[in-house]
Each structure stands twice: as structure tokens, then as C-alpha cells.
């Protein structure tokens, strides 16, 4: 990796995003709008004794989930565009390293996700009185690491997609199992043993656990830091795998 080339690539991706105002607007507005829907869905639901209010628990998990799903989609399409427009082939004839390109996407969309998560968190905390024992800064941090993971998985999956149709099909494959098994619908320790085993190897399970730790503890816990490290590690692993599947030469 070359810091100058990495910085130029990150800047280039952010400039592309800046020119696309509609995408920026969608990135910022959609999670906040969906949180509004969730708030009114749960506003009259009773709070079970000794547990957090349903909205607090679900909104907290969604704050981490929205950047995950959105950044996965955005990245898959962005990388596919690099392939089909010929820019990828051209880039690979320049001094740019494969990791410069992949980490460039990770950093650029990670930064976009911070803005997205901050706006969504602001709406949740200020407008809908989201109540977490821990700090909102940690929630945004976990959401951003989640987004970087999604970017990494999107880059990896785009290596296996030849068309936009295929790229979009990877979303349910990668995202849906992680959403179902992350502990949002059924607590993970109440699942069948084999489902729990699957859940244990899916990175989103750890980001949800980390978010719930922030929800119930005033100070960051060791479990939260461990979970965050696992999610970050999975992101780096996926980026390295993506670099390994990116070939300079093609047939």
C-alpha cells in the first residue's frame, strides 16, 4: 500500500459521491425515515418488566444495521461499475496497489457511514428519546465499523458478480441470514444449537451484541471491545480476500 495513492483514491471516491447529490440525500434521509416508522410501530407497545422498552432495543440494533445493508449495496454496485466501465482494468495497469483501491473504498464509504449513523442516531436520541446506558458515540463507532465490514463484504462479493442482476442477488444471500440470526428476532442463546453455531460465525451477531452492551452498560465493557475487534477483524479479512480474488490479468 502507498499512503499517497490510498489518499488520492479515497478522495476520488468521496468526490464521486459528492457529485451524486441524490445518493447523498438518500443515504442521510432513509435511515432516519425508517426509524420514524419503527418509533410509531412501537410507541403503544407495553414495556416488559425489567427489560428495555421495545423501541430502545430495536432502534439500537437498527442503528447498526442500516449502514450495514446500505453500504453493502452501494459498494457492490460501485465496484461493478469500476469493472464494466473499464476503469478497473486501467487502474490495474497503474502503480495503484489492489489494497490501495479496496482500503480506499473501505475508508471513503466508512466516512460516509459515520455521517449517516450520526444523523440517524441524532434523530433516534433527540426526536424519539432513545435511551441507552452507554454513550451515543460508541453506538456511532460500532455502526461505522459495521459499515466498513459491509464495504469489505460488498467488494468481495462483487468479484463473483458479472452483472448488476447478480450483484443485487448477493444482498439477500449475505445480508438476510445475518439479520435473521443476529439476535434481533430471537435471542441467540434461545436458538437451536446449530443455528447458534451459524450465528457464532456471522460477524453481524457480534456487532449486535456490542450495541446491546452499550444499551445496558454505562461504561464500555470488555465484551463490547472484543465484539468490536471481531467485527473489525472480519472486515480486514474480507478486504484481504477481496484483494486475493482481484486479478490483474483476465482472459
Amino acid at each position, binding site marked *: 500500500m502507498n499512503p*499517497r*495513492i490510498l489518499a*488520492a*483514491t479515497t*478522495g*476520488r471516491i468521496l*468526490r*464521486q459521491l459528492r*457529485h*451524486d447529490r441524490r445518493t447523498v440525500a438518500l443515504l442521510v434521509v432513509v435511515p432516519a425515515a425508517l426509524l420514524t416508522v419503527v418509533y410509531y410501530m412501537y410507541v403503544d407497545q407495553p414495556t416488559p418488566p425489567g427489560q428495555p422498552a421495545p423501541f430502545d432495543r430495536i432502534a439500537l440494533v437498527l442503528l447498526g444495521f442500516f449502514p450495514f445493508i446500505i453500504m453493502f449495496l452501494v459498494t457492490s454496485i460501485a465496484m461493478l461499475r469500476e469493472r464494466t*466501465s*473499464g*476503469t478497473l*482494468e*486501467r*487502474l*490495474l*495497469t*497503474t*502503480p*495503484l496497489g489492489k489494497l490501495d483501491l479496496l482500503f480506499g473504498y473501505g475508508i471513503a464509504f466508512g466516512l460516509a457511514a459515520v455521517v449517516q449513523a450520526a444523523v440517524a442516531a441524532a434523530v433516534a436520541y433527540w426526536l424519539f428519546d432513545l435511551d441507552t446506558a452507554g454513550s451515543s458515540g460508541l453506538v456511532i463507532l460500532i455502526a461505522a465499523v459495521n459499515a466498513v465490514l459491509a464495504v469489505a463484504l460488498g467488494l468481495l462479493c462483487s468479484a463473483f458478480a458479472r452483472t448488476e442482476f447478480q450483484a443485487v442477488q448477493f444482498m439477500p444471500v449475505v445480508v438476510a441470514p445475518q439479520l435473521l440470526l443476529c439476535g434481533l428476532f430471537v435471542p441467540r442463546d434461545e436458538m437451536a444449537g446449530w443455528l447458534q453455531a451459524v450465528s457464532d460465525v456471522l460477524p453481524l451477531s457480534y456487532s449486535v451484541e456490542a450495541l446491546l452492551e452499550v444499551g445496558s452498560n454505562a461504561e464500555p465493557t470488555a465484551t463490547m471491545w472484543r465484539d468490536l475487534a471481531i467485527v473489525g477483524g472480519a472486515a480486514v479479512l474480507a478486504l484481504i480476500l477481496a484483494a486475493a480474488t482481484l486479478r*490483474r*490479468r*483476465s*482472459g
Partner: protein
Amino acid sequence: MQDAIALRDLVVDRGGRQVLSGINATVPHGTVTGLLGPSGSGKTTLLRALVGVQVVTAGTVTVLGHPAGAPQLRRRVGYLTQAPSIYADLTVRENARYFAALQGRGTTQADQAVTDVGLRAAAGQLVATLSGGQRSRASLACALVGDPELLVLDEPTVGQDPVLRAELWARFHAMAAAGTTLLISSHVMDEAARCDRLLLIREGRLIANDTPAAVRAATGVDDLEEAFLRMIQAGEAGTAGQEAS
């Protein structure tokens, strides 16, 4: 002096079909060499092999003394793909500055490259809003920006008006005079006369590798398109003769 490009027995298969069948050729330093042939003859595949993005079945490709695609070549070789490969959602200037940064060049060189291809007035325009000809010139600027020793250009003058085409060819020759080697593909035969040397390929085989004057002399006709037709016919008659014997 060593040749800028040396191809030995280059064979490339794509999609189960042999696209290049044993090409042997050299390109000297500081020349403008035209790679000519009908569409589908293997021009783009040959250029891709030179810049190291094509999987090669057999043979060797040596560029500036190194195997094609070697990491040390990535600063020394500029590549223009046939379809403009630049970012449609960036301005011309932003594209040039990005590709300049990849080559370790500054914004001054980037802006100069944009001026050199005649796009100074459109520098602030998004590439998506440019005409086809402007787009391919913007793409060309991104190939020129690193001031490479070897420029591999896949049909750089397609869709350009005659005045611009003449300007671009004058620039190519000025660069060659300064020591740059240029390999330029085209399927338009009237561009052949503008080259110092010609490589003619047809159906994956090299038919001619000579100067335009030598091609004219060998075939006894002045028009290069006619000369190529005769060479192709002579080649086919030769192959038919071999098959019959």
C-alpha cells in the same frame, strides 16, 4: 539499442477461440507504430497483452526490457482503452488529477494534459455530460498524464473531427521525437500513412511489419488500403497453395 517492445510466439486464447496465433514482432524506441487490422483481428487483445492485463497462453511479451505487466512498468507505460475508461461522475479535471496522483504527478501536469487534448474549456464539466469524442479525449488525457515512456493507445482518434485528429497526430509525433514510443491501433487505413512503422494483423496473424514506404514498394501500389488488400490476397493464395500441395 534494445527494442521498446518484443513479442515472441505470442499466442492468446479467449473464450475458447485462438485470438492471436504466434505473433513475432518488435517495435523500436521513439517511433509511432500503427497497429492496423479489421475489427475482430486481435488488435485490442495484443494491446492488453502488452500492458499486462491479458492472460497469455504461450510466448513472451517484453516491454522496455521487462516482462509485460511487471510492477516497475506501471509508472513507465500509459494505456488508453478502446472505450473511454474514466469516471463519468467526475469532472475532466478531477479525472486527470486522480490518474496524475496515481503516477506521482501533480495537479499542474494533470491540467496540462487536459489542455493538451483540447479540453481546457470543458475541464470543469462532468464527463457524463461530454460528447463521445470529448470523452475519449478526456480518457486520452488520463493516459498522457504520467508522461510515460511507452504509450499504448487503442483507437485514440475514433470519433474526432479532422482538425483535432491532425492535432493529435502532430502531438504523437512530437512525443516520439522526444523519445516516447507510441503504439496506436486503428481500423481506419488512412491513419496508416501517418505512422513511422506499421504492424498489420488479420485473424490473429501478423501480415506485415514495415514502414509505409516499404509496404507500398513491396506491393507496387501507392494506396495503403489497396496495398494491404493485396498482401492479404497474396497471403491467402499462399495458404491455399500450401493446403493444396
